[in-house]
């Protein structure tokens, strides 16, 4: 989106210039920001000197409070304090159980909305407030404006959750270099790129999500083989299990949200204490009526959470199966996420793989550290030869007759990926059709997650079955879907209207952004003009450089056309005619696509032939 361009007019970034790039772990319980400083990835400390920013936001007054301070307000002000918002992002009300929340949750056009003293807040806005805080920390520590960030998401996040996370970053004014999967980031942090080869399992149990990924490492290439998990399973569920156990054993039945909050806090404390203690005696006065007196051992805790832990092992089995690997073919297991501190988890995973686990890095920090390293590479600050080849975690399909799902892109396909599918009309003269895209592994539409409905318009009116529409589904390296369509018999490009089933439309995001900038109309225009000029200048520079190096790839006619476009656009850069600048930029852009394609082919050719035979046959 043009509104988010970071560099200023005339300041094109030279390759050697250092760019401030950070890695952000936007977690369910805590969030972190990290950066590579003097070659080492480190966590940037928050204002209170802590490495962690509690992912809690309080909206009781006009002043938005984020972090530990907000968390402390939660017990007294549960209605205005939002924690674990990651569990709500990219979802609608029917996906969750509102009873588990002490918040006033509503549905607002398919998006969850929370009533607070500051007005209605949706999960994207709340996440953006957390991200804004991290951005400030980063800019204050690094001393300069942020160039961009790599933001991590659970590998098992679906398209809607990824899109919502990216939208939150946009809203926070952060240039997203890439969304990467948390397990992949952890693998990078473990320095598995350094001389390690083979298959590794990343077991990631966070506050609210569980992911398991199987990666193959070879000469700095991280190729994800398979991923599996549960976007609704995490440490919070272990708290819930203790909460339920407490209520059952002490015959508590309360609907008071403050009492509930206190019980949840106690449950969490019990869980954390049981990490180092084998037995715990609980003697805690919750309020006037409730006084808890009981005892819980590590063994009993293991028992009451056994079904949760088993779910993670089942997921691991599926991932191994998808990767076509057996336990004996695994060279190492990386443990990620604060919840993997629980002894019952450590023991179960170790027993399953029959080998010691890799857990020497702080499981809370490892994801942010890996993301920082990847951000540093993507920003071009280092020549580290590392490439992440990640996969789509869930299959994409479309609805067909009888509400059956036809799979278009199978899960665990390496990204980026695209698939074409042909459709035809059902009635004579039909000029539009709706395509319903879903994500999931089940055969029935109702068992999958509805992502979006696309309306194809402008189909030429022909007899039924004569029009052939090729719809292309493209999933990019962030795991995000885009769709384009073309009528084959006439070559007419159909227009597509996308109506997301969850989350916000592009226009709404744009509107929220504009509102947050609160720009006057005049400011908007001058901003748009300077952006158009910057983009045009960058385009000219890029193409001029490309011509300098590779003019041999162009014939005389093509070269002349590009040079003519370039001269005209260069001349326009001194004017204030934004419309014409944009028009000519687009023309130059279109005319140089073929040239760019040829250059890319040349890179492929060089990649294979430029290397000596001996280095090919390692």
């Amino acid at each position, binding site marked *: 989106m043009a509104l988010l361009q970071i560099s200023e007019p005339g300041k094109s970034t030279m390759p050697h210039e250092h*760019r401030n790039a950070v890695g952000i772990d936007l977690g369910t319980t805590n969030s972190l920001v990290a950066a590579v400083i003097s070659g080492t990835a480190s966590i940037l400390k928050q204002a209170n000197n802590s490495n962690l920013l509690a992912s809690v936001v309080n909206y009781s007054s006009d002043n938005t409070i984020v972090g530990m301070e907000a968390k402390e307000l939660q017990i007294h002000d549960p209605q205005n304090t939002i924690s674990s918002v990651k569990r709500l992002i990219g979802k609608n009300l029917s996906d969750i159980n509102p009873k588990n929340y002490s918040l006033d949750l509503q549905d607002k056009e398919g998006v969850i909305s929370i009533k607070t003293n500051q007005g209605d807040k949706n999960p994207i806005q709340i996440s953006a407030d957390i991200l804004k805080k991290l951005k400030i920390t980063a800019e204050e520590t690094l001393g300069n404006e942020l160039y961009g960030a790599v933001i991590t998401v659970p590998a098992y996040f679906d398209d809607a959750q990824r899109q919502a996370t990216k939208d939150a970053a946009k809203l926070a004014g952060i240039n997203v270099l890439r969304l990467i999967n948390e397990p992949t980031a952890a693998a990078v942090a473990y320095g598995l790129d350094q001389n390690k080869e083979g298959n590794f399992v990343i077991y990631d149990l966070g506050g609210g999500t569980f992911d398991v990924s199987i990666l193959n490492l070879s*000469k700095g290439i991280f190729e994800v083989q398979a991923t599996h998990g549960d976007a609704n399973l995490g440490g919070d569920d272990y708290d819930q299990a203790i909460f339920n156990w407490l209520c059952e054993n002490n015959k508590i039945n309360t609907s008071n949200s403050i009492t509930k909050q206190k019980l949840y806090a106690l449950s969490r404390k019990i869980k954390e204490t049981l990490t180092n203690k084998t037995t715990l005696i609980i003697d805690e006065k919750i309020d006037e009526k409730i006084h808890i007196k009981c005892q819980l051992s590590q063994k009993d805790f293991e028992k009451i959470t056994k079904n949760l832990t088993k779910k993670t092992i089942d997921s691991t089995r599926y991932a191994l*199966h998808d990767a076509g690997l057996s336990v004996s073919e695994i060279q190492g297991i990386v443990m990620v996420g604060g919840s993997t501190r629980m002894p019952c988890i450590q023991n179960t995973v170790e027993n399953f793989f029959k080998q010691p686990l890799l857990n020497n890095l702080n499981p809370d920090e490892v994801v942010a550290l890996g993301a920082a390293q990847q951000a540093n590479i993507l920003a071009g600050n280092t020549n580290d030869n590392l490439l992440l080849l990640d996969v789509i975690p869930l299959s994409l399909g479309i609805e067909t007759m009888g509400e059956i799902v036809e799979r278009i892109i199978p899960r665990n*396909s*390496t990204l980026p990926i695209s698939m074409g599918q042909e459709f035809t009309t059902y009635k004579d003269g039909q000029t539009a059709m709706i395509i319903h895209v879903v994500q999931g592994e089940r055969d029935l539409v109702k068992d999958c997650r509805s992502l979006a409905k696309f309306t194809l318009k402008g189909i030429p009116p022909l007899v039924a079955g004569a029009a052939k529409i090729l719809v292309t589904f493209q999933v*990019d390296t962030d795991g995000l879907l885009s769709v384009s369509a073309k009528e084959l018999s006439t070559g007419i490009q159909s227009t597509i209207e996308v109506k997301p089933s969850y989350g916000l439309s592009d226009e709404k995001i744009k509107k929220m952004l504009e509102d947050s900038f609160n720009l006057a109309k005049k400011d908007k225009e001058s901003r748009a003009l300077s952006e158009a000029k910057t983009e045009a200048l960058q385009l000219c520079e890029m193409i001029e450089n490309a011509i300098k190096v590779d003019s041999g790839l162009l014939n005389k006619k093509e070269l002349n056309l590009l040079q003519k476009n370039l001269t005209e656009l260069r001349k326009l850069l001194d004017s204030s005619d934004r419309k014409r600048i944009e028009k000519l930029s687009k023309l130059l*852009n279109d005319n140089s696509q073929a040239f760019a*394609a040829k250059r890319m082919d040349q*890179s492929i050719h060089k990649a294979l032939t430029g290397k000596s035979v001996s280095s090919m046959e390692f």
Partner: protein
Amino acid sequence: MTQNYFEIFNFPVQFNIDLNKLQKSYHLIQAEIHPDKFVSASEIEKHQSLIKSTKVNDAYQTLKDPIKRAKYLIKINLKSEQNNSALPPDFLIQQMEWEEHLESIWEQKKELEKFKLTIGKEYQKILNILENTCDKNKNWNDAMKIINEIQFIDKLNHKIIKQINAIETK
């Protein structure tokens, strides 16, 4: 990039390929053209990188998998994806025997694992026949029939693995 998938990796257009070399070439190419290498580049380069990287991924996935590779080879040679060939009668009988056997050992993990090995050997055997049919005889109609057989065996194999998993997760 009008090259076919084999040409992208500098391979001869044939069924038998060096899978090690395929992976190495794939990595070398992606290291040059993957969208991660163009994060700060112009929109044109980003767009082209996405297109090419997608195509290389597709090519890699197609060639890596013997069934997909054989189908692609037939498509190139016959210029058609139609596969109307029926399974030969003796294979149908074999198929029924396997299905019956699987049913009789459905709850026995050890037997399932033994059967998995048998099926694995069968898979390898037919794969060799497929290679001969494609690379030596270049008989694409026969190749289509063999692909049908392999696909059945492949599905059977997955069914066995899934059931072994199901027993283990109980």
